């Protein structure tokens, strides 16, 4: 069974540029999570979906970040006008459902904003 896949693996931007991250969860998992992990810190949840619906996006900086999962499978996280403070690894995870279940993580996208 394939795990969670993410692309790209690395991205380097100048401040003010936009970037999109893509995630393909494990087949059959209805819940998908996006986390931000700054260097030397634990992952911090940005947003998560059950199927195509957002369950919680309270930690997503809504002025510059957006996330969609239109068909309840793959998901895209986009940063408009990146800032140096957005430098971090962006992790995607999935679980079979949103009711107390193990989360499986992808390899992450390392973002550097210059």
């Amino acid at each position, binding site marked *: 069974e394939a795990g969670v896949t993410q692309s790209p693996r690395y991205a380097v931007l100048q401040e003010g540029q936009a970037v999109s991250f893509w995630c393909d969860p494990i087949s059959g998992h209805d819940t998908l999570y996006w986390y931000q992990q700054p260097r030397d810190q634990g992952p911090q949840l940005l947003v998560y979906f059950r199927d195509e619906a957002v369950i919680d996006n309270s930690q997503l900086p809504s002025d510059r970040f957006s996330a969609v999962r239109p068909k309840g499978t793959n998901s895209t996280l986009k940063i408009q006008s990146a800032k140096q403070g957005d430098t971090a690894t962006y992790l995607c995870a999935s679980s079979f459902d949103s009711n107390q279940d193990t989360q499986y*993580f992808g390899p992450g996208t390392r973002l550097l904003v210059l």
Partner: protein
Amino acid sequence: GDKVKQSPSALSLQEGTNSALRCNFSIAATTVQWFLQNPRGSLMNLFYLVPGTKENGRLKSAFDSKESYSTLHIRDAQLEDSGTYFCAAERSGSFNKLTFGAGTRLAVCP
């Protein structure tokens, strides 16, 4: 303050020795997950716990929801156990929303 506090923040072990990592929670945790992040950055799930104990090979973990803590015991440490260990708690009614600790960096030396 930190909702999930891990200790120690860093640890160095000789190969073959044992150790214990700990998480204390200031939130009402209903489940706990432990992960190992390897030097390449991949997060691997080690345990999913409701209150109680689980064991897998040289690893054993316990979660006490009443006393608000969880432990991860490593027996006979091996070089491949090196990495950063994270615990993450799910708060009651939060639909699998995890709050992570800051991690314990473990180095196993020959």
